[in-house]
């Protein structure tokens, strides 16, 4: 086989294999994709750190059914999430909400980064100021020393 043909065959295999694998999964229509998307953001109530999508528990299965029902009724993803939050609290969301006290969780890394940058800038500018001051002192001392030396030499000469 020519190298070009081998390359073409390899590329075809690489691009088509994931598509073939995806079509193997059960029903992956738009409704199921929504169930997957919403349930991945919800916490399974009887598991340790597992989403409703990933959990095989009966209650998670029932929750996925409820999401499917609500989606069929025309509710948006946000409305479906709000349905669960109204019953289970913000606790049911795997990522903390972007409001109220939980907002701090989102802002803290940014604030810490900014504080670190400010501290680093302050420290470096302090070093530079000190270095400049030292250089100025050195220059003055050197000039004074040279003047003294010149004076001594002149005095030594008859």
């Amino acid at each position: 086989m020519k190298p070009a043909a081998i390359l073409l065959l390899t590329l075809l295999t690489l691009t088509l294999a994931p598509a073939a694998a995806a079509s193997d999964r059960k029903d992956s229509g738009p409704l199921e994709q929504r169930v997957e998307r919403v349930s991945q953001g919800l916490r399974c109530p009887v598991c340790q750190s597992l989403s409703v999508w990933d959990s095989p528990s009966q209650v998670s299965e029932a929750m996925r059914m409820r999401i499917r029902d609500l989606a069929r009724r025309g509710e948006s993803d946000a409305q479906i999430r709000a349905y669960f939050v109204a019953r289970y609290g913000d606790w049911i969301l795997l990522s903390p909400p972007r409001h109220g006290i939980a907002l701090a969780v989102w802002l803290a890394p940014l604030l810490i980064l900014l504080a670190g940058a400010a501290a680093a800038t302050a420290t470096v500018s302090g070093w530079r100021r000190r270095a400049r001051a030292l250089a100025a002192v050195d220059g003055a001392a050197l000039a004074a020393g040279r003047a003294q030396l010149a004076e001594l030499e002149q005095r030594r000469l008859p």
Partner: protein
Amino acid sequence: VITPLRAALGLLAVGGLVAALGFGLSHDPRALPIVVINKIAPQETLRRLGGGRVRVPFAGRPTLLNVWASWCTECKKEHPLLVAAERRFGRRIAFAGLIYQDSVAGARGFLRARDRGPNGSYPNLLDPGSRAAIDYGVYGVPETFFIDRRGVIRAKVVGRMSWQTLEQGLAAISR
């Protein structure tokens, strides 16, 4: 050099860390929040063991809704308490059981062993697909909801009740 500003910033950072750790360690991360208090209870029309359909909460009457399953050990210990409470307060307060993720045969066996007959002494409702349970925000069993005559959830108990918690719940909906 330790300037007062640096000392203050250092103390603030360490203090913040200690406060965060203290909060995290003194709170149970598995404790479940109860958010349904003072909310209108979902209206559910469900088939009851023994036939017929029942709508909960009962219109115009305070309702105790106990969620249970025959596979739940704590429910087995709790059930005699509910039977006794229904005998005592049943005229003022409507009792109902919501059967959670269970088979009809399993539920009947449970009631036959510890209640008056296989259908129980008050309506026990079937909830296929746990639709009603999720509408109520049930985490697991047993859970008990106390709903006043206007249909507002006034109290919820997660886990097995004592006689005292049961009476407190009933007091909250008897007004």
